[in-house]
């Protein structure tokens, strides 16, 4: 059964469970508000000017970091995927760096770049770039040899094969990398804001401050905002993918 109301029913079930838990006092009432109070707090926060400036700060760090990652990760991934020499040289290194939990590097970024925007964006760039690099590399590596052979027989140059065949054939994988990394960029942007308290608070900073001030209702409302933004970014990318990479799975 496929019904467009089913996803809504899922949300409603979640809210009911949340409500029941808050009624039963399994969790101290001070720590867990019922959904309607969080919703009220959400509306109140959204009517302030401050929240929009924080949302903007978080989006700025996330999107700028993500964009830089695309600029670095896509060409590097293409190169490593296309040239077996480059792949043999760098693949293990990329795998190793990717295995480092990016948050373990927080102190390093603070020392080198401070607690302002630069340090936060650097953390986002570090993790996102590696993800994009790996997905792009796999996309290029797994391109059909037959298709390239065809291009060669009709006289295509290496450059043409790369620009007109390999690039497009790798796009679905590249795009999967972009989608994974935009979500990761938001996660790390918010984590960075919780630890590096320089500049505008951003959503991460606000959540941290709300907890610090024991304003748990506000904290939950801010978490909901983060969730909505993450969901929006993910869905936006999915829609872009469906539009531009129409051939996948067909």
């Amino acid at each position, binding site marked *: 059964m496929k019904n467009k109301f089913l996803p809504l029913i899922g949300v409603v079930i979640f809210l009911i469970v949340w409500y029941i838990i808050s009624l039963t006092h399994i969790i101290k009432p001070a720590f867990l508000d019922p959904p309607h109070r969080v919703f009220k707090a959400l509306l109140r926060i959204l009517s302030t000017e401050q929240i929009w400036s924080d949302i903007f700060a978080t989006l700025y760090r996330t999107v700028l970091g993500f964009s830089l990652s695309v600029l670095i990760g896509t060409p590097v991934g293409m190169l490593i995927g296309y040239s077996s020499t480059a792949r043999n040289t760098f693949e293990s290194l990329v795998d190793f760096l990717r295995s480092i939990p990016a948050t373990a590097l927080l102190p390093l970024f603070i020392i080198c770049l401070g607690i302002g925007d630069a340090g936060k964006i650097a953390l986002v760039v570090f993790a996102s770039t590696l993800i994009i690099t790996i997905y792009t590399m796999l996309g290029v590596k797994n391109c059909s040899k037959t*298709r390239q052979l065809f*291009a060669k027989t009709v006289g295509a140059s290496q450059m043409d094969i790369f620009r007109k065949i390999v690039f497009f054939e790798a796009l679905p994988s590249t795009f999967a990398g972009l989608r994974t990394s935009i979500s990761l960029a938001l996660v790390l942007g918010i984590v960075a804001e919780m630890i590096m308290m320089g500049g505008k608070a951003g959503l991460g900073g606000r959540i941290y401050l709300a907890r610090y001030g024991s304003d748990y209702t506000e904290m939950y409302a801010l978490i909901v905002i983060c969730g909505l933004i993450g969901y929006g970014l993910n869905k936006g990318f999915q829609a872009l993918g469906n539009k531009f990479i129409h051939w996948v799975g067909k």
Partner: protein
Amino acid sequence: MAYIEIKNVCKSYLIQGNTAERLEVLKNLNLSIEKEEFVSIFGPNGCGKTTLLNLIAGLLPPDKGEITIGGAPPGKIKTSFIFQNFEETLLPWRTCLDNIAFPLEVNGMSRKEARKKAMAYLDKIGAELPLNQFPYQLSGGQKQLLAIYRALIFQPELFLLDEPFNALDYDMRTLMEGKLLSIWETNRITTLFVSHEIDEAIYLSDRVIVLSSRPAQVVADIRIGLGRPRTLEMLRTKEFSEIRNRVLSAFREGYKK
């Protein structure tokens, strides 16, 4: 000297996990093909027909022997090759029209020019394809046509086809054979057609070369005296069945084991 000269060509492959022995695919193979001929290569499965096409296309070097095409080594002249798994060579991110325009684009035309030229070409040969759709929206026969049009648009001097109609059902196959014939009869590109369908090979060709089992050698070189343009009625003539018998007995003779 013939247009394509294949002299004493040998080709073997490494057997995986066995360094001492090699799999001999072609052994001292000799063949000559004239310009503007339509030649079918007919032989048992796995006898090296595809390898032979790869050598002629210049995609593989022979171990021994020599291949010349118009006096030059393979790979020097404009060649179109329809692979057995040709579906994999279609470009799903491009519309049919842009797929057909691809060979023109990589030979120095702008995309706009290439599209225009492709349109003119398709009009000329009376192609019926949904040009603005993508390959994955086409039927099996349409995909086949797309591959053929794309192969011929840049006016190759040599056209190689490796069992192209295998995936099609009987009706579609007959239809495609007819289309291929009418295209070929108008521009007479030197064509090598690998087939394991005996009727198809005879119906399309000027000559049928029968190969033996591996290592492949030429068992028979049978000239097909049927007139052109070919018609489906010819399949029912006495002449056709006589040729068919000759091809079959050559095939049996070359079929070892």
